[in-house]
């Protein structure tokens, strides 16, 4: 018999699923043009309820469902991050869907289901369950990517994402199968025990395959090629979700797979992937004129920085990675929220030229975007600075001097393309006469959340870092 406390341990996932189903049921009953606002509000309530549920969940650490799910500091941390991401994305979507004239209520349902998948990914410790959660999150995102039905590029990006994503997930599944074959179990901590004896060749192969699958998901080189196209075509709030939520969840899974299992031989794989991601991401972004592609390449680069923390390993490296995931989520989701607002109907205004003179047209938006960009560069007072700082600090503590040097040089080079956006906003005169519409309430709240998070992580990161550290300790137990 399944004890009640087990259900509490997956309370957020349950809550969101229920609300998701509710939205799907209500969708046909509401009027087409105006009813979707209600669904959005329900989704908003769902995320808030999910946050509350996480607080309840956090009181009940432990395993659930025959050891398939584990609630510990690690998973609770990621739960909070992912739910906050979902919150901001939903807030941004209110107005976006209006402007783009997308009247499909299942949008909100899909967001919620995708979030369920991501949440489950972080607390699952059973590889098959991880795979299921991965698929739940991925499939929701595949569909969401194609939501701007009337444009070809949206459908194209959705199809690309789906085909390549399935391809990569197959690698992951194959890896899971090999691990099962080698160790006789798919429970992460069971595998850890089994690997204490000399790991066989199958395990190495399995680790490689799982890394390929997850590496695709987090957009690290050399599995990053889908990122620019998919980010460019998908609707901006969906990109906000895609670039932060599944990434954070996939990194959590990668942390479990590489470190909690005690997998062997991953170091050079991660090292090379980190160096390549940073370099390709940053260099590729230098000539981009489309802000969504620019931020896509930047995502690849940031995946690289995160992988540097992976290479550092141990508690310092893992906590640095966790902190980086949180701060990256805050600044990226905010940046894409602004992009989605400015892009206007049909996402016309996504080129850098359209951002020219934004400092004059809409000083508030320009100022907020500047702060997010500064955070992405890694300028002090922002969360991005501390995140990079911790990552490189952890790397040096693990004596990874070469990788650190590559990392800091990349940070400096990256400054150029972020600075370019700032230059366009403040130092060039506008060519487009389009007035930027007033910031709607939902977007405003969402931006406020991201902004406060970014600056909080930049000025008083101590608390959050302690949680991250506790998460790292729990992971390795």
């Amino acid at each position, binding site marked *: 018999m399944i004890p009640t406390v087990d259900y509490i341990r997956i309370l957020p996932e349950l809550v969101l699923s229920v609300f998701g189903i509710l939205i799907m049921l209500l969708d046909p009953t509401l009027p087409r043009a105006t009813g979707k606002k209600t669904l959005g509000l329900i989704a908003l309530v769902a995320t808030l309820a999910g946050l509350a549920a996480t607080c309840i969940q956090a009181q009940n650490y432990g395993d659930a469902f025959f050891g398939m799910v584990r609630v510990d500091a690690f998973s609770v941390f990621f739960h909070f991050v992912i739910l906050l991401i979902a919150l901001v994305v939903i807030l941004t979507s209110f107005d976006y869907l209006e402007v783009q004239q997308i009247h499909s209520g299942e949008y909100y349902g899909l967001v919620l289901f995708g979030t369920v998948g991501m949440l489950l990914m972080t607390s699952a410790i059973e590889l098959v369950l991880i795979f299921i959660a991965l698929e739940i999150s991925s499939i929701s995102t595949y569909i969401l990517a194609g939501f701007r039905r009337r444009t070809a590029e949206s459908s194209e990006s959705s199809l690309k994402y789906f085909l390549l994503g399935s391809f990569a997930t197959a690698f992951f599944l194959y890896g899971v199968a090999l691990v099962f074959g080698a160790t006789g179990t798919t429970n992460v901590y069971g595998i850890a025990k089994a690997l204490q004896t000399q790991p066989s060749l199958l395990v190495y192969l399995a680790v490689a395959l799982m890394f390929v699958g997850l590496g695709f998901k987090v957009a690290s080189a050399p599995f990053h090629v889908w990122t620019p196209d998919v980010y460019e075509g998908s609707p901006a709030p969906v990109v906000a979700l895609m670039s932060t939520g599944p990434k954070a969840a996939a990194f959590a899974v990668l942390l479990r797979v590489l470190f909690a299992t005690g997998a062997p031989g991953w170091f050079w794989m991660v090292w090379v992937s980190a160096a390549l991601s940073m370099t390709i991401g940053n260099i590729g972004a230098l000539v981009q004129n489309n802000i969504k592609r620019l931020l896509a390449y930047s995502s690849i680069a940031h995946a690289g920085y995160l992988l540097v923390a992976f290479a550092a390993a141990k508690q310092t490296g893992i906590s640095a990675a966790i902190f980086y995931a949180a701060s990256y989520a805050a600044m990226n989701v905010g940046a894409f929220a602004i992009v989605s607002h400015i892009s206007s109907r049909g996402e016309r205004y996504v080129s850098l030229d359209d951002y020219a003179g934004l400092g004059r047209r809409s000083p508030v938006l320009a100022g907020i975007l500047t702060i997010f960009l500064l955070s992405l560069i890694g300028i002090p007072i922002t969360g991005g600075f501390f995140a990079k700082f911790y990552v490189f600090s952890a790397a040096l503590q693990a004596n990874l001097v070469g990788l650190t040097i590559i990392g800091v040089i990349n940070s400096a080079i990256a400054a150029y393309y972020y600075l370019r956006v700032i*230059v366009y906003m403040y130092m060039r005169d506008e060519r487009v006469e389009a007035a930027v519409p007033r910031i709607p309430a939902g977007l405003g709240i969402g931006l406020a959340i991201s902004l406060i998070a970014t600056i909080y992580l930049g000025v008083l990161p101590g608390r959050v870092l302690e949680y991250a550290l506790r998460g790292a300790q729990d992971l390795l137990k």
Partner: protein
Amino acid sequence: MNFINENIVTIVTFLPLAGALLLLVFPRRARDLRYFALGISLVTLLASLHLPWHFQRGADGFQYEQNVSWITHPNIHYHVGVDGISLWLVVLTTFLMPLCVLVSWKSVNERVKEFFILMLVLETAMIGVFVALDLFLFYFFWEATLIPMALIIGMFGHGRRIYAAVKFFLYTMIASVFMLAAVLWLYAHVGSFDFLEIQRAIQQGAVPGFAGAAKWLFLGFFVAFAVKVPMFPLHTWLPDAHVEAPTAGSVLLAGVLLKMGTYGLLRFNVGLFPEQARANAGWIVALAIIGIIYGALVAMIQPNIKRLIAYTSVSHLGFVVLGIFSFTQIGMDGAVYQMLNHGVSTGALFMLLGMIYDRRHTYDIHEYGGLATPMPIYATFFTFIMLSSVGLPLLNGFVGEFMILSGAFLAKQIWGILAATGVIWSACYLLWMYQRVFQGPVTNPANASLRDLDAREQISLWPLAVAALVMGVAPMLWLHSISPSVTVALKQFEAATQASAPAMTHLSNAFMTVFGR
């Protein structure tokens, strides 16, 4: 009183930031903004005067220290304090700020609010660099100066401002990430970011792996500071940044930001890595002397006045680097003093250039000529400040240059000889420029009816002129507090390298007797 004593550094550092945040909510009426910015900068100046007023001369170590744990993991503290070296640099910053506000009164008319917010944030960052005693905090403030300055240049500058702003930002940032790597390495191996702790650990040899890494750490810090100073051949960002920056931006850039580089060299390169400093002094001084001569010669033939003065900064700060790496008491005293002098005189020069730009909107020497006729007051101020920059005795430049040259001469005669030629070159380029711009008949009819300085412009110049004079005849007022701190630094340096400094007691005694009353 005790509360003030303990927190004065924090107050002085963050008062401008508080002002900037208040400005955010101000309505956009330009006049109020300017008065408010002026008020905040004056209040900060008054607050900062507390620092030298209650400074205990000759006391060891740092004063007004404040050490609060900021983050526990990693171990970062908010540790600030001043000693004789940084004390006057802080005052220089707060002193130049109100003058910059005055100078920008009429010349910045658009986006005034953003301008003053950026200036105030920049002020906080600059002061923070000088008072930070925790390496992380130092890096934090160091990076924090980049964006406001880049935005000031890029938003409020002239023709090629975007190129200059991006160049400035990327050049400095790429160089400083090497310093970041060095700082992180030190933390990883010492367990703390605290400057004093790290210094002690290095002196006691308690840093694992230090022997192999010391050279790279030294270079890491050095690159960041060398770009900032700027030292040849990493100096080419400066002329572009200066030419395109608005007047206030240039004043702060030359007056304060460049000092961050020389301060860093003294505090960190020499303070943390004395053995490497001594070992590398040869080529560093060579670069400094090349900077002195090269900077002066290139300045001489510049047709753009602002670019000319920019190159003179390269030359003058070459003197400062020379003074630091002479490792003599008198040389290093002179270097610190010359930092202050350069801030005053070059800051004033840029203000003067700004005033003429406000009238004619050009920096081209050929456009001018015979300006002394329509603008005699301006010409007088210009002469005065220019002579201070040349190093005429009775004005501040002479004191600093003399001390540096003495130190250089004591360290190695050839250094002193080569550097001394720099004095000749500086007279060359400044006097020749002065002649072409001010003397003779008015060649360009556009100059004939130029308005002389008005009250506001004169008010912004008088403090600098007076400072130049007082610093030239009574340098002991400043050297009283600077010298003991330099002695402490030098003693630590000598203890670490176990080399004896050349006997210079006679010369410095003579100097003190003449100037110190």
